[in-house]
């Protein structure tokens, strides 16, 4: 039982780290540019599709995945220059409308290029085995690799924000736009960079999730909302908040999937229990968010206004 519990906790950590990658870019664009970017989930999807194509060309998961990242960066910069930067000074309604339009565009674009049916990326051979973490605790190597990569990126991001000049500018935030400009920083370039960076994280999350989920149109849309929930719980603009909230949401989701069905079976039929459990675990996430916002209307680590 303890082994099972540990494995489920690891699954939660792994999911949480994936969500953190997606949420990090979102909270950066939110916090720095004051942009509600619904199309962030499209970048997640594009990361997966880019990787699918590039892995097909190179016949190597590692190479394909590595090449997909600069592609995501470029795409992010293009989106920033063509659309996003015109939205920074607009109100949230404009941003919602425009980035909603971008979602429709990207979903349809993918359908036109890659076709309507889903694609799949298989787990690379060098990770297609299990690792023994503790005596009796056997874990799929690919999922373990996800945890490692996710942790490395999270640490890298924490270092970037806490220790570098770029991080200082990021922490200065949207409210100090003028101050940033006064420091002699090219603010347009900074914003493009940050947006591109967010796109890389989103794309990385998408391509890493691909072998365990699948590559399909709209794959980023529902997960995006969970990412939004995460940054709202964590407090908009806070990387630390996004990390904490992502971990919490990851655990809730896994608990819902792994333990709720058995729990529900104690007072309802097996079939309806396994149908209701995923729905209830999703619902739980939103209940947690509502509770946090009632308690702290700007999230756990958000700036009080």
């Amino acid at each position: 039982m303890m082994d099972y519990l540990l494995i489920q906790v690891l699954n939660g950590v792994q999911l949480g780290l994936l969500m953190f990658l997606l949420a990090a870019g979102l909270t950066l664009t939110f916090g720095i540019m004051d942009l509600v970017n619904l199309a962030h989930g499209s970048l997640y999807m594009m990361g997966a599709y880019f990787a699918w194509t590039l892995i097909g060309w190179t016949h190597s998961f590692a190479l394909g995945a590595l090449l997909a990242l600069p592609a995501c960066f470029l795409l992010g910069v293009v989106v920033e220059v063509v659309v996003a930067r015109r939205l920074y000074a607009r109100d949230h309604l404009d941003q919602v409308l425009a980035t909603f339009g971008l979602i429709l565009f990207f979903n349809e674009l993918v359908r036109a290029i890659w076709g309507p049916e889903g694609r799949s990326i298989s787990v690379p051979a060098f990770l297609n085995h299990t690792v023994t973490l503790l005596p009796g605790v056997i874990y799929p190597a690919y999922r373990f690799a996800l945890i490692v990569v996710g942790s490395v990126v999270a640490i890298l991001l924490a270092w970037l924000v806490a220790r570098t000049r770029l991080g200082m500018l990021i922490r200065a935030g949207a409210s100090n736009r003028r101050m940033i400009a006064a420091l002699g920083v090219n603010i347009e370039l900074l914003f493009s960079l940050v947006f591109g960076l967010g796109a890389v994280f989103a794309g990385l999350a998408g391509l890493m999730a691909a072998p365990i989920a699948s590559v399909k149109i709209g794959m980023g849309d529902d997960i995006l909302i969970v990412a939004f929930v995460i940054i709202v719980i964590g407090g908009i603009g806070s990387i630390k908040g996004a990390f904490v909230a992502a971990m919490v949401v990851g655990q809730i989701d896994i608990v819902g999937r792994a333990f709720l069905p058995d729990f529900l079976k104690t007072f309802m039929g097996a079939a309806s229990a396994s149908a209701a459990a995923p729905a209830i675990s999703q619902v739980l996430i939103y209940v947690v968010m509502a509770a946090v916002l009632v308690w702290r209307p700007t999230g756990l680590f958000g700036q009080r206004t």
Partner: protein
Amino acid sequence: MAELLPALRTPRGVVTALLLLLLAVLPLLTQAFDQRYLLSVGTRIVIWSIAAASLNMILGYGGLVSFGHAAFLGIGGYAVGILSAEGFASGWLQWPVAIAVAVAWGTLIGALSLRTRGVYFIMITLAFAQLVYYLSSGLAAYGGDDGLNISRSRFPGLIDLRDKASFYWLCFVLLCATLWFCSRLVHSRFGYVLRGAKSNELRMTALGFPVFRYRLVAFALAGGFGALAGILLANDGAYVSPAMMSWVKSGDLIVIVVLGGIGALFGPLYGAIAFFAVEEFLPPLLNLMHRGWGEYWQIVFGPLLVIIALYARGGLDSLLGRRHG
């Protein structure tokens, strides 16, 4: 009535009057020209106009960007669906219950959401809508993800909702009633408080208005009208499913309101007509340019929304000249 006559002399008045006239006689036209499909499009336009008008009450007049309005449609639809599945077929029971549930839900989540501002408000309304969405897909007894076939609400001796034309006219009358209510609301004491709070919340508070309470009532009210649209949608297709309250539908509703003109009385109607016109006519138009392109019409529609957000905030209503009052 005295006010209506001068209004008819403006371009907006003329266009609106012609549109309403056309909608009023639509079943006769579609029957005369044997275009049944157009009647079903017309029905959807009318129902979505009601839904958009209900969103316009809070988004347009109140300035509250609610990104979860489709949940109210879903609640209205599911209340009818569940009651019908349980053997309560009377519309006289179904409809009031559906609206009451939506108003109660609107009051509850409004009380929680309205404590937040800006992006947080957008996200919390979205999240509550997702909550309802997942709840409905978890209702294994009522179809879960696949949705639920229902029998239409019964109003014995009054109206048979299975008759397409009767159902259309009922929807049309309810749309007129909704728009009439909105037209009164804008210039009522309540409407002034709501609009004042949109213009300058701090000032309204300083004047002594407990802004929160007024917004909460507006939110619940909008939920009730949203449920009405949901009831009609459920009866239109004799079917409810979680898809009717996916967040994309909430996005569509915002698109319709903005497209028509935020805060404009007839904006939701213009917006719904334009929205469905694009959906129906853009694909064949693209096919004319190149066979097969029509299938991918959203590649054009998406950027169109970006352009509207960036350059055409007044929506279609602003094409009809300046608004006053």
